[in-house]
């Protein structure tokens, strides 16, 4: 009977009901949902401003029901700094890919962290440049083939995969740093908690909060969606260990 029904899941209020433009099996959509859920559960939709970056997620502003500015490639943390400094009682977050944050935008993320900007950073690591068609990213695994590492990433020439949250966790201005994956319901549940914690670090005025989320790019990895998830589990998680690297609410940290 209808009165006995319990709602177990529904579309978050902050997620717009339109079809996503992402490729089948791409986990950008899952991560959008996690951000929308955090915004809803913290009750901050009307005072949140997102900063979109340049990459496949550039159109995130079509999917989340909050104000947005779209930043130049890599500069989202600087745009977010400008917004947050003049509107300190609002909640400001960036959503950036690995090319955006870990390559062209390294100066901006590093110094936003160093200044302890009260912003939240959602960092999507799919080990490749999605939007431009599968070139090598700073996070590309050693030996991994991409269109610009056709013989596999040669560590001697191109270096190894850059682990960014480890770097950022060492900076005083960072209040929360974690890495999670979205490859299974259990992992998604942990990722949800991490995204919310990264928002809390900002809301509680403790510092910058960042979550790196290991994500799939089936199209450029040239794998069917299910195999892409398995590939992420088997290859990315060992190279990019999961867990909370820093949380200033925890004693002993």
């Amino acid at each position: 009977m209808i009165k006995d029904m319990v709602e177990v899941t529904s579309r978050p209020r902050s997620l717009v009901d339109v079809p996503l433009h992402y490729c089948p099996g791409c986990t950008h959509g899952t991560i959008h949902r996690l951000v929308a859920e955090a915004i809803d559960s913290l009750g901050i939709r009307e005072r949140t401003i997102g900063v979109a970056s340049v990459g496949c997620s550039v159109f995130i502003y079509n999917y989340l029901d909050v104000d947005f500015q779209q930043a130049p490639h890599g500069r989202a943390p600087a745009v977010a700094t400008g917004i947050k400094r003049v509107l300190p009682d609002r909640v400001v977050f960036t959503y950036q890919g690995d090319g955006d944050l870990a390559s062209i935008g390294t100066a901006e993320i590093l110094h936003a962290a160093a200044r302890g900007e009260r912003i939240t950073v959602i960092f999507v690591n799919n080990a490749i440049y999605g939007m431009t068609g599968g070139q090598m990213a700073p996070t590309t695994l050693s030996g991994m083939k991409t269109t610009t590492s056709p013989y596999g990433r040669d560590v001697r020439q191109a270096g190894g995969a850059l682990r960014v949250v480890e770097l950022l966790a060492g900076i005083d201005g960072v209040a929360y740093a974690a890495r999670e994956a979205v490859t299974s319901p259990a992992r998604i549940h942990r990722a949800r908690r991490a995204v919310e914690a990264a928002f809390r670090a900002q809301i509680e005025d403790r510092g910058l909060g960042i979550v790196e989320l290991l994500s799939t790019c089936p199209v450029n990895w040239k794998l069917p969606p299910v195999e892409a998830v398995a590939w992420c589990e088997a290859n990315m998680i060992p190279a990019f260990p999961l867990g909370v690297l820093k949380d200033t609410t925890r004693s002993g940290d």
Partner: protein
Amino acid sequence: MKRILMKGNEALAEAAIRAGCRAYFGYPITPQNEVPEYMARHMPRAGGVFVQAESEIAAINMVHGASGAGVRAMASTSGPGFSLMTEGLSYMIGSRLPGVVVNVMRGGPGLGNIAPSQGDYFQVTRGLGHGDTHGIVLAPSTVQEIVDLMPVAFELSERYRLPVVIAADGILGQMMEPVTLPEPIAPPPPPDWATTGAVGSPRVISSIYLAPEDLERHVLSLMRTYQEIREREQRWEAYRADDAEVLVVAYGTAARVVRSAVDRVRAQGLAAGLIRPITLWPFPTTAFERSPRRWLVVELSAGQMVEDVRLALSGRAPVGFHGRVGGVVPSPAEVAEAIRSAVVGEVVRA
């Protein structure tokens, strides 16, 4: 009205705060360091924001953020830093964001030197970045004019929703002159397009128009704004120009030297005058409707504005050029000589 002695860079910063600017972002570079230094001291007292950015790239993007959040925001820099800002300026133009950027020009190319120059004329007037970009460019020639143009810069920037550049040079930034400061005004409330939190439906500030037809519509609307600006915002000053048989065109510091040179040659019986563009873009073409027999352009650069003068005259009279580069500023005697040569028909080149 009280007159006080102020350095150009400091007067500029104070005038910006009095014009309601409440966010300044910058990175140190000579010859404009007094601007961030003044802002660091005074902006917090005015209830505004000062951030020393990690680069000029970051600084312009902070202006993007703050301006998009509805606050009067600015940055200042010099040549090399201005180059780094052009990507961000293009995004601001594409997203129709206001904001003021001061370029206290120094000698180039490359690191060049820190001496006064006007060598960034093409860079500021021919498009402030990639794509079909323009922004209004104001060129003061005294410290008082810097102060007077500051509120104008913010107002124009907001009226047309485009960045405004103030093109000064190392001499204007460093020199001390008496100024009268205006009464401070309260910052305007955020416009309705600003991203301040979606209480109603969300607002998006973006320069992306994926479909060619959509981007064409967007650029055509920008071009209509550019045309409106060309028709309405040309500014210049004419000095002893009415009866002049030779007109000299110069802006900023170069115009100050030309003014003295005009007085010199007038004293010797040569009817010279000065046209001083105050808007470098839009170029004040209206000032060129009446043409004397001869023209001379004087620049602290290698022949940049002279192209706009020749375009404005479209062959109606010969245009000579006299320029000094590398931070060298010509003397009034040198310019007076150039004016005399222009009249006898020689085109003097530095």
